[in-house]
């Protein structure tokens, strides 16, 4: 199986010097879904942000190889153009920019990066209609300003809709389940599962086990205090749900 991303000894800090990630090692191969779990403040969202290229984090050590390239050397937009997709924990509202226009611009920017011409209007519309069905996104929302006035569930579905439109190689879902009711959770999970192929991969960052009832991971990692302290099969998630994180902390100390 091909490696999609390989993270080696990744350290990252805030600009004030506070170290959040303290040496992460992770390898994700094509066709896999990895779940990253951990208590609040363990560094889960920071990992997602660093991979997507958010500027407020400074990588102090380590490397990230993405499809054979140095990911950390790329601008955020180039990461996206190379097929990395971050589903935001808090999708941003952008008044005045229509959802559709935004997506069309994104697709055309990605195509231009690959040396392709702009997408034909007809093809684009056909794609919109097909992909929005996947997450049951209301037609009205497509023409509205990006995320403006969307409910929490609509925002998350819009993230997965965008993911479907951009067809990424690596998707990072940052707490996509937070604030979702069971119906919305099911729709989001259905979207993610449908988009899974043997050529792409996903990293699902979550606090709770319940998302993993719907998205079955190949590997579960437990992040604690900036490090992955345990990795295991999907059953690990259930164990965590049952015993909480303290059990692992204790185990870590005994080790």
């Amino acid at each position, binding site marked *: 199986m091909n490696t999609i991303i390989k993270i080696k000894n990744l350290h990252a800090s805030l600009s004030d010097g506070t170290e959040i990630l303290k040496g992460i090692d992770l390898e994700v191969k094509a066709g896999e879904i990895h779940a990253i779990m951990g208590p609040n403040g363990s560094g889960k969202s920071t990992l997602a942000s660093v991979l*997507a290229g*958010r500027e407020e984090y400074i990588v102090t050590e380590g490397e990230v190889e993405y499809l054979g390239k140095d990911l950390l050397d790329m601008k955020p*937009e180039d990461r996206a153009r190379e097929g990395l997709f971050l589903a935001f924990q808090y*999708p941003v509202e952008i008044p*005045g*920019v229509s959802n559709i226009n935004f997506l069309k611009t994104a697709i055309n920017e990605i195509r231009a*990066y690959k040396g392709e011409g702009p997408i034909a209007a007809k093809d684009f519309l056909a794609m919109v209609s097909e992909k929005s069905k996947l997450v049951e996104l209301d037609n009205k929302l497509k023409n509205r300003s990006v995320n403006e006035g969307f409910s929490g569930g609509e925002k998350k579905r819009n993230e997965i809709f965008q993911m479907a439109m951009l067809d990424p190689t690596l998707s990072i879902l940052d707490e996509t389940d937070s604030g979702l009711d069971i119906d919305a959770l099911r729709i989001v999970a259905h979207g993610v599962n449908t988009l899974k192929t043997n050529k792409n991969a996903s990293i699902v960052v979550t606090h709770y086990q319940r998302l993993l009832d719907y998205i079955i991971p190949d590997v579960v990692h437990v992040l604690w205090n900036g490090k992955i302290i345990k990795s295991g099969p999907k059953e690990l998630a259930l164990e965590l749900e049952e015993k909480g994180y303290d059990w692992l902390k204790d185990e870590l100390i005994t080790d």
Partner: protein
Amino acid sequence: MEAAVISQQNSTTAFLKELNLPENATNNQVINDQIKASKERLLNTSLPNKKDEDWKYSKISPWLKKKYSSFRSNDKIDLKQFKSTDLKANLLVFVNGFYRDDLSKISHQQNGVIIQNMTEAIDLFQGDMEAHFSKGIEASFFNDLNTVYHGNGVFIKVKKDSIAETPIHLLHIQTGKANIAQTRNLIILEENSQIEILESQFELNAVDCLSNHVSEYFIGKNALLNYSLIEKGSENALIHTNLFVQEDFSKINSNVFSLENTLIRNNHFAKIIGKDTESRMNGSFMPDVNEQIDNRTLLDHQNVRGFSEEVYKGILFKKSSAIFNGKIFVDQKAQQTNAYLNNSNILMDDSARMYSKPELEIYADDVKCSHGSATGDFDTEALFYLQARGIGIDKARNMLIHAFMDEVLAKIDNEEIRELGKHYLEARMMKIEE
């Protein structure tokens, strides 16, 4: 204290000395009296300064220390370089404040629309001139200065029940060093008439110049004025004053694009004397390094059931400043006034300064008025969101600026003018990115 007053008057005299105030310039006694009054006020007031609330944050003072002269330029000018001339319109060109017949083009004559040189209009349209010239305008230093120099400008009259089929474009071009350009325009819309006016201000190799344009608009019963203004300079100062006097059932839509110049000061007032009026005033401004754009507006509701809506939006780049002094005044008589005023601004850099003061002064009890102001930093979270979807940072920034300014553009009904405004806003952003 006394010494200070004298020194202020001395500086006024010094400023005026270089300008050679003209003596009794017209054949009309009423007009001459107006000019005389302005001249007397001018000689007895101090120059605009920081002690005056209206000029508190203004960077006008270096412009009052320069020595100006007023000179005509007969240079050949290729107007195609000014995109606003793409508009199919009757074009009136003023260079350094002087009308240039050779550059102007009145291609569409129409019975109900009179376009006349201001100097000639004083003789030909005595009644209109006596009734309106300098009547409603605020007594201020720059207005009085303009009144005294009243000579150049245009008189436009749209007769009763006439709809001007072609827009009128007043194009000002400033050129040369340290010249002062002043035009004085009088525009009368009679009952049931309608016109679209575009005014634009550009410059060619101009430096240290001051423009001081004043227009008085009288919008008659049930008449409609669509007005737009494009202001684009670089190393000069522009004072631009509009007065819109509105009668019963009249409507005005004013859209102002203040793009760049070292100093721009707009005084745009609507004096609403009629009932059941509509007044919309919108503006956008984008100052860059060391530039200041200053908008002072007044919606003066003097009669019942007036509706007014004002939206001004600014994007301030590094080391720039902008001022917004917007006031809604509602007279005791002006019951059932419905007025809305909003100013929002984005600071692109910590070094940018915005002074925003929206104001309501209400003396009637049955009114619906609201105002708001918001100034914030550029939304870097939104920028990152767009980048994270593959959109390059420059394009992403552009999209967000557009989205912010779109509200103002969307208010322009005339598609050609809207596109023109959009063109200038975009060109402005491109220039800043370079």
